[in-house]
């Protein structure tokens, strides 16, 4: 493995010492490019009080290529599919090397506050959201209680 670029060390230091509210990201001890992430569901969203676990991996091309991020906790969200993959432009074509782990995680947190069924990844969930938003939000709440209750 390549030696860790200073940028990653710097980002990690800052993530640890000044974490963004509701976001915890810690590198694995045996691989400092692999982060375990927990995002607390934003208030007034169907994901409130949920603890959503994600994994984040920095490839060798980082920061020229975006980090790979995936939800590990099951979530009912039009932009997140069954496998936890996230539909977010900055993780794909809108990536910029000026973005950081912190900004990526904040964007994901924002995505939980504002689902976007017009740019879906999970089509059936998006349909549900568009046809009966109230019912979809109810289901999302149920899932949050069911799958994201534990901080473990």
């Amino acid at each position, binding site marked *: 493995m390549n030696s860790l670029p*200073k*940028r990653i060390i710097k980002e*990690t230091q800052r993530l*640890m010492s000044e974490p963004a509210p509701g976001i*915890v990201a810690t590198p694995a001890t045996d691989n400092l490019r692999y982060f375990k992430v927990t995002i*607390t569901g934003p208030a007034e969203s169907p994901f409130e009080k949920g603890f959503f676990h994600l994994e984040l991996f920095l490839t060798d091309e980082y920061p020229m290529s975006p980090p790979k991020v995936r939800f590990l906790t099951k979530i009912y969200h039009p932009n997140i599919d069954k496998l936890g993959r996230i539909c977010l432009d900055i993780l794909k074509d809108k990536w910029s*090397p*000026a973005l950081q782990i912190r900004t990526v995680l904040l964007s994901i947190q924002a995505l939980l506050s504002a689902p976007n069924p017009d740019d879906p990844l999970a089509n059936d969930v998006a349909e549900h959201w568009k046809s009966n938003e109230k019912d979809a939000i109810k289901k999302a709440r149920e899932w949050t209680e069911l799958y994201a209750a534990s901080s473990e």
Partner: protein
Amino acid sequence: MEVPIETLIIDQELIKELQCGICLQLLNTPRQCQNGHLFDLSCITTSLKKNKQCPICRCSLSSKELSRSLFVEKHIRNLKVYCKYHYKKGEPLVMVPTTEKSISSSSSSSLGSFHDDENWIIDDGGCDHISTFENLETHQNSCEFGFDQCKYSSNNSSSNNKNNNNNNNNNSNSINDNGNANANANGNSSGSNSGIINNNNNNENEKENDECGMIRKKDLENHYVNCPFRPTLCKYCEKQFCFKLIDDHIENCDMKPQTCDLCLVSIIKKDMESHLSDSCPSKLIDCPYSHFGCSSKFTRDNLNNHLENQTAMSQHLKFLLLQQTKKEEDFVKELEEKEDKIRRLEEALLASNGHRIEWKIKNVSKQRSDKYTQSESFIINGFTFFLALFWDGDTSESTGFVSTYLFLETSKAPKGKALFLHYFIEFQNQRDRNQSIQKEFDVLFPIKGGQGWGDRKAIKYTSLEKDGFIKDDTLIIRSDILVKKNLWSIDVAPQR
């Protein structure tokens, strides 16, 4: 590991404005987009290959559109910085996520922690000089707080260094750049040296003290005066040793003078042994005639007195004579032993290859009247022999003598064979074995024109009678016969 440039900058707030938007490090070759976003040339070049826009404002951007910023460059050049010798390496920081209790308490176990090795802390004994970033290199090269290896202990034992750091918490604040230092070695030099010298008595610490470590340049001169490894001359042998070993050396130096316990004269250690054995006047010695028997002992300075003393002199002479006599006796004894050995060897030869005939003639006075007596016959290698005596000689000219012969029974002799015999015939003197008469012969049997061989005048009969040869009217004749050669003369059958 080098202290990062960012750490050296005094006003840390400035870094945020002067760092590359991509690698987050202090700008090295700053370039900006049309909106003034700053990147390092190498970083933005890589990024533009993937995406022709500014990573921050996403304005369209190509390599040609990048511009310098003389203001930023000057700003960086003039940054106020400490030099790297202002810092030392601290213990690695262990960082765990700090956030709401509910998450951190569980995450600390499930998510682990981050070990930040790059923890640079201010070195209290370090350099406080402030220079501009532009002049940093020049200052650091000549900074007297920089480190140098002590020239007297420059053994390249980097493994030892590691041990130091592991074993001793005080040493954990060593700087690992072009200079490697531990706190013990750099502080004030007199203090640290006394510490090292004390440790010398402690074997456990021996390894750690195999070198001085890195010393600040400003302290080197002082260190060299007190360095435990500084070369030091032994005042006795004038050889060079490192200071910490000189006491041990002097203790054992063979050029060191010692006082002789006996004569109290000062002698160089290596000469002490020969002094005692060869020259010390107070050493108790044996008389040179001790192995001839003189048991006198005296100090060496009394040797001449003893040798010139009249009584001792005659005593020594007596010892010498005794010694001479004894030598002669030993020589005679040795000769006798040799003769004895020869005899034993002869007997052994006879025993393996010879025949011993013992012929006891009883009633000599009666036998004698027969003039002639012969022994029983015996066989040697197929030949039949017997011994014979003519009591009053076998011819007129040997009258009064006893003649003795070894006879071959020619009629029974094997054809075509001959024996070469070495033999003697002995008249045993029964009063004194040493007076026995022995006649020796070397003869080839069969004898041409005769039957036997012997001595016509072996012994006078009167001598036989009066000199102790006959005892109880019995005479003993002994004959040892050795076959020296077996000869075969084969008649070749005439050819038809």
